[in-house]
């Protein structure tokens, strides 16, 4: 079964067609990059898959189940997680509190009113384990807004990972990062559990070719090309839109 399937998806903003008749199928455990010039509709596609926007037409399936009209939190329950192009954290909470909010979703204790969160040992130790694994444990008492940009990106990926998703959407995870920070995030993506399906939007071609098994190229809201990195690298139409053509 495909983990994520998109059928004939279109999205119009007034007169602007951000996505036109787009179809994609992504297999479980696949690492898929979406590339394309600015305005190609990449982030719109993510908002449609995540449920932040609803499509003008077309359908979206998660593990064979149609989710086209489900709100984001219902899709999360089916195993979908995402990061945003603009880092979206709980800025005025500490790193530990950020993690706790993500980890406690695993335990169905979200509506428990009468017991301190800190008394749930499994939640506390799971949050600690994740933070230690990604070298953020020392910063657990720092407010999220006081972290460096790179650390914020890492924390956002951690927040998406904590609920143990089956499909992970990463919207430009390395945007604005230094070369060293980029390598850290790339290592993080490469070390993800092989069963997780990863879909990422990437502007950095090196990163996209390094991480992805397959690449889809969007241009003006349409799927221009799709295939393994070597094929995309050689594709003349892709070179044309990136390098310009005569």
């Amino acid at each position: 079964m495909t983990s994520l399937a998109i059928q004939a998806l279109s999205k119009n903003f007034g007169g602007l067609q951000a996505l036109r008749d787009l179809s994609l199928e992504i297999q479980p455990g696949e690492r898929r990059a979406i590339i394309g010039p600015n305005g190609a509709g990449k982030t719109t596609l993510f908002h449609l898959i995540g449920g932040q926007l609803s499509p003008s037409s077309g359908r979206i399936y998660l593990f064979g189940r149609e989710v086209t009209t489900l709100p984001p939190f219902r899709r999360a329950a089916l195993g979908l997680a995402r990061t945003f192009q603009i880092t979206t954290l709980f800025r005025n909470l500490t790193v530990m509190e950020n993690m706790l909010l993500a980890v406690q979703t695993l335990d169905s204790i979200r509506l428990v009113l009468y017991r301190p969160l800190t008394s749930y040992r499994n939640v506390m130790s799971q949050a600690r384990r994740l933070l230690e694994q990604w070298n953020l444990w020392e910063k657990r008492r720092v407010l999220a807004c006081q972290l460096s940009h790179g650390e914020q990106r890492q924390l956002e990926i951690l927040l998406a990972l904590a609920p143990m998703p089956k499909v992970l959407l990463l919207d430009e995870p390395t945007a604005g990062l230094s070369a060293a920070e980029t390598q850290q995030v790339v290592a993080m993506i490469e070390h993800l559990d092989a069963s997780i399906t990863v879909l990422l939007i990437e502007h950095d071609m090196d990163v996209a070719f390094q991480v992805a098994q397959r690449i889809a190229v969007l241009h003006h809201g349409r799927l221009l090309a799709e295939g393994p990195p070597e094929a995309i690298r050689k594709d003349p139409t892709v070179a044309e839109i990136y390098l310009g053509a005569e």
Partner: protein
Amino acid sequence: MRRRHFVLGIGLVFGLIVLAVAGRLSPTYYTGLMTEALILGIFAVSLNLLLGHTGLPSLGHSAYFGVAGYTTAILSLRLAQSSWVSASAGIVVSVSVAAIYGLLALRTAGVYFMMITLALAQVLWGIAFGWRSMTGGDDGLPGIARPDLGALVPWSLQSPANFFTAVLIVFIIVMGALSLVVHSPFGYALRGIRESEARMDCLGYHVWLHKYVAVLIAGGVAGIAGILFVYYHGFVSPAELSLVLSAEGLLMVILGGAGTLFGPVLGATVVVFLRNLVSGYTERWLSVLGLVYLLVVLCAPNGILGAIRGRIPGWLSQEAEA
């Protein structure tokens, strides 16, 4: 961590004992002020659950305070119900109003949320003002007797000291319950919603449901404060449903420290004492309150308690540590 909790616990118990003794032994006038500060403190704390924790700026919180007060007053005066019945009904009605108002108001956010909560509270104010035969109009309803505890407790709540003690007991129970709520997974989720609804949504939280439950709890607790207020004064009027009270509530929360547990109580105390002590010297006590507010907002934007907490890192903070 353990030791810190122990020290905090001892400090809290000690503080409450001092408060209880001071309240009972002070001259009647000051006992009265402390009673009112505790009652409005409960009101401010309930508003803080929405404003400080969930990030919902309600400008109509007096609706729950007043509707509980009016329910209690009308039941005990017009239907001669026992105070157990009329006080319980007051809480039930305030939670029910919160259930309806929450459905309407939570369709909006930000400034629109302020406007719709204001409008909804004004509806109740208009009913209280206009329905003379039932509510007494702008004269209000005087002569509401304090509960007679009967054989249960040999105290009479007629004495100011005993009424103060009763209010203090309710206050401790409410604060204990709310302390549990803000430290629970649900309480963390509320602060998550304040910081980023989009992120909470992606994490799989039913954001609307969390907000709705917060509105119900805040409405019920504000109702408790309203009932105590009506018993304290033996009187209820449209002022208890007014925009002025809602705005004062916001002022108390911001003065004391939004998002802290005890800050709003501090804010309520400052407002009550300023109003009563300064108005003895000048009619312009509101100007003094305004100045205090300006000073706090400029010098300590996180409120009085927020500023204290900022000075002592790691101390008095409710942040989670492992």
